[in-house]
Every structure is written in C-alpha cells, then in structure tokens.
C-alpha cells in the first residue's frame, strides 16, 4: 500500500522559523528544532527545512540547525535554500540531510541536476519549482523565493528536471502560498501528470479539505504544509523561546493568532480527513483513536 506523505515545511531565517505570505512579509514563529521535534513526534512523514533568505546572500546558514535536528529526528529531512554547488550539497548532506532541494541554481545551471543526481542518487535531489500563473493561463517558474522571473515555462521545466535525473519535484504556487485559500489544483495536476517522478504540492493549505483536494484532484503524491500546522503548534505551546533581534515577532508577543482563513489543525486531523476520504497515508492506530 503506497501512501500519501504529509511534509511540514519549516522556512528558516537565521536561527528562527519564519512564515511569510506569498513568500514575503516574514514573521518569526520560534525555534525550528522545537517545531521539527513536535512534528516528528506527531506523525510527520518527512520534514523540509528551507533557508528563505539564503538565495539573497548566496550561502546556506542552515547547517548547524540541520546537524542538531538530524541527531534527534529519524524521518527524512530535505534541506534547501541557497545551495549553489556540489560542495554546498555535500555540506548539508554531511550535516545529516537526506535530500536537498534546488531551485535557483538548477535553473541557472541545469547540468547541476545531472551531476548531483549522478553523485548522490536521484532520490537525493528534489527540484523546487515556484510558479506564478500568467494571464494566458500558463505558468512561469520563478527563483529566489518568488522574486525573480526566469521566462521558463514551469511545466516544461518540470519535465526537463525529471529527464536530468531529479528524484522528486516540489511545486509551489506563489499566488496561493501562505494565503490559506487552497492549493493551485490545476498547476499541481498538470505537473504531476506530465512527470514520472513523485510531485509534492506546496503552498496554500488552509483547511484539511484543501489537503485532500490536492491529492484527489491535483494528483499530488505528497503535500507540504506550513501555516496551518505552525499556528496550531504555537497556539498550544507556551512562548518560552528567546527570539533574536532579527525579524518581526510582534504578532507573537501580542496575540497568538493566525489568519482567519487558516483553520487550526494538526497532522493527526489532516490524516484523519485523508483516511475518511479513502486516501492511504501512514498513521498510528493509537493516534487515530485518541487524536
């Protein structure tokens, strides 16, 4: 029985977990390791760490966080953000990542996909595609967290990455990202049906039904989720972390509130919804009863 994966995505800026809307307007949410551990203990199928500002500076500052996390968390960990070269990839793998996510560097130099997948195995190389819908209905791939246009057609790029040896594709709709309005089903479906490799849908989950929709209608093989899990965890945890000077933590100290469109939910509730709709996923029997 093959299963649909639910993958919490942790966007990291410096030492903090952040979350933006449309990949901008970052808010500080807390220490990423704490969130990672909580999700691991509560049924996450994998985790993604994304260094959201690394592309600007051209380096990855995640290595320390990855190292601490991978010693305690025994599910697959994907790391991305600002990885440019084979050396960069090697560094995060050595810190304990299982896979790397490439976007900007892969578009600038598609041969990197070939080289990296040959060296570390296809399944280690995940290509992240951030797309914006154009007025003519096609999708254009963007880089640098949705800041730079590339002129590359997202669908053709997805096919090309699979041919070059990518093991998975993660599709983020920048239009939907962080809005809680649901995934871009059309984009996800188009890409999933045109590549032989698994597709992770990312960006837009606001309710558990959105997750089920992107699997049923969007044909996603895995779903990456941020806001609806983070806000739930924050609401149920005390503010014990020391926050660095960086970032906007105002919203955290004032009121622990998410967006109205974003449903307060947990991994357990998401999986329950999937199972009720006949979608296979990994679950523990005890959690299903007590959760």
């Amino acid at each position, binding site marked *: 029985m093959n299963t649909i994966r639910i993958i919490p995505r942790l966007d990291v800026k410096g030492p903090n977990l952040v979350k933006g809307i449309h990949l901008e307007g970052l808010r500080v949410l807390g220490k990423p390791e704490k969130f990672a551990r909580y999700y691991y203990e509560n049924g996450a199928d994998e985790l993604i760490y994304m260094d959201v500002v690394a592309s600007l500076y051209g380096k990855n500052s995640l290595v320390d966080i990855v190292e601490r996390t991978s010693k305690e968390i*025994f599910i697959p960990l994907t790391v991305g953000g600002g990885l440019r070269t084979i050396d960069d990839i090697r560094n995060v793998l050595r810190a304990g990542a299982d896979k790397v996510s490439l976007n900007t560097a892969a578009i600038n130099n598609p041969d990197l996909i070939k080289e990296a997948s040959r060296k*570390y*195995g296809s399944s280690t190389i995940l290509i992240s595609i951030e797309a914006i819908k154009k007025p003519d209905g096609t999708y254009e791939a963007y880089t640098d967290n949705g800041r730079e246009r590339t002129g590359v057609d997202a669908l053709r790029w997805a096919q090309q990455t699979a041919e070059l040896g990518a093991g998975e594709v993660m599709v983020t709709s920048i239009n939907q990202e962080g809005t809680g309005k649901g995934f871009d089903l059309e984009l996800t479906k188009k890409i999933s049906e045109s590549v032989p490799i698994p597709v992770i849908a990312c960006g837009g989950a606001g309710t558990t039904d959105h997750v089920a929709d992107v699997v049923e209608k969007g044909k996603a093989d895995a779903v990456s989720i941020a806001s609806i899990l983070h806000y739930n965890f924050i609401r149920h945890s005390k503010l014990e972390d020391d926050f660095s000077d960086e970032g906007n933590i105002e919203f955290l100290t004032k009121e622990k509130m998410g967006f109205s469109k974003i449903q307060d939910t947990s991994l357990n509730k998401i999986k329950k919804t999937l199972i009720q709709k006949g979608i296979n996923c990994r679950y523990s029997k005890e959690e299903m009863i007590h959760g």
Partner: protein
Amino acid sequence: MAKLAESPRVAIVDHGLGNLFSVRHACNKVGLDAEITFSKKDILHSDAVILPGVGAFGDAMQSLRKLDLVETLQETALTKPFIGICLGMQLLMSESCEFEKHLGLGIIPGSVLHFGSPVEQDGSGAQLKVPQIGWNSIYKAENSDTVLWQDTALDGLSNNEFMYFVHSFYVRPEDPEVILSYTKYGNIEFCSSLKFRNIFACQFHPERSGTQGLKIYKNLLSFFTS
C-alpha cells in the same frame, strides 16, 4: 558517555554514495558506537557491519572494487552481524539488471529488478511513480510458522508496520525461504526484508522510519548485550 567506548563497534561502509550520517545518528541513538569508513582494517575489526547506500548499483560496485572491499565484505558478511540497507541490500545479490547487467557481491543468490520492468507489471497499467518515495507497510512472509519475526532484526515490530522507502529497484532472492517481509507497491509485491545466515537486509530505511525503525538498530544492540 565513557561507556560508549565499550559498546559494540559498527562499521558503516562508505562507498561514496548516499547519506551515511543518518545511519550513524541512528546507531548512536540506541547506544552503538558507529564509524563511517572505507578502511578494510576498520571493517575487519568491527563487531558488526552496515552496508548502506542510495544511488546506482553499477557505480557502487565499481567504487567497492576500487576500494578493494569486495572480498572484505564477502568475508565479513558471513562471519559477523551484517546489515544491508536499500542499495546495500541490492549489492548483496548476484546481479542487477540496471541499464545493463552488473555483477553484485554475490553473497545472496538472486537478482535485482526495476519496478518498471515489463515482466513485473502484469499488464495492470497502474501508473506508479518511480522511484517509490514514501512510507509503505511491511507484512510477514508466509514461509514460516514462527511467531511474528521473533529472534530476527524485525523483532518487536507489528505486521503491516510502516517503513520509509526510496527506490526504483528491488531484490528477488532465489530462495524465497530467506524472505522476512513483503511489501506491495501498486500491483508489484516485492521482498522488503530478508534474513540470510547472519545477514539482515532491508529495502526500506530503518534509520528514517521513526521510532519503529529504530527498533531494528536496538535489536542489533541487544544481539550483543543479551
């Protein structure tokens, strides 16, 4: 931590492919002393050997030959606790049909097949994404009357336990008696773990399969401590 020096020493064979660090972290987590190494001496002097790996069969065999580790592994696989994980499981077989025919370590008679192999698809037309990436359940092979996986590396796991898989190929041992568990991917049923003499091999990644996966590492530890 002083006690760690006395704990069993595991050699994690480094043939240049895949993430060996999660394997080491899993060993350390349960109290095994693990070293990532390609040194013949380290492997021969270890208490147990883990052969991990993701990536291409041909490249891995070529690398093992270059490191002059083929005979060392053939020898240790029959003399001490030995675990093959994912590609490491496949390398133990006689041969693989990846792109072209490649000879494996030849320790376990059998072959390595691709999910997309026309012989295996049985005309169902099921559209499976390859590689299989994700959690899938392992269930007991019907070849023995013993209590579920007792006294094997899977001791303590329940039937249909979820484990994490990443692969395009799977093994088919000549002797089905060695199979501990099967897993189904679409219409394809494959051997997801096996026991051959003192070898335990699995297609899934126990070090990425949460607390249930860690039980397999704990079972390796208790082999030495009980």
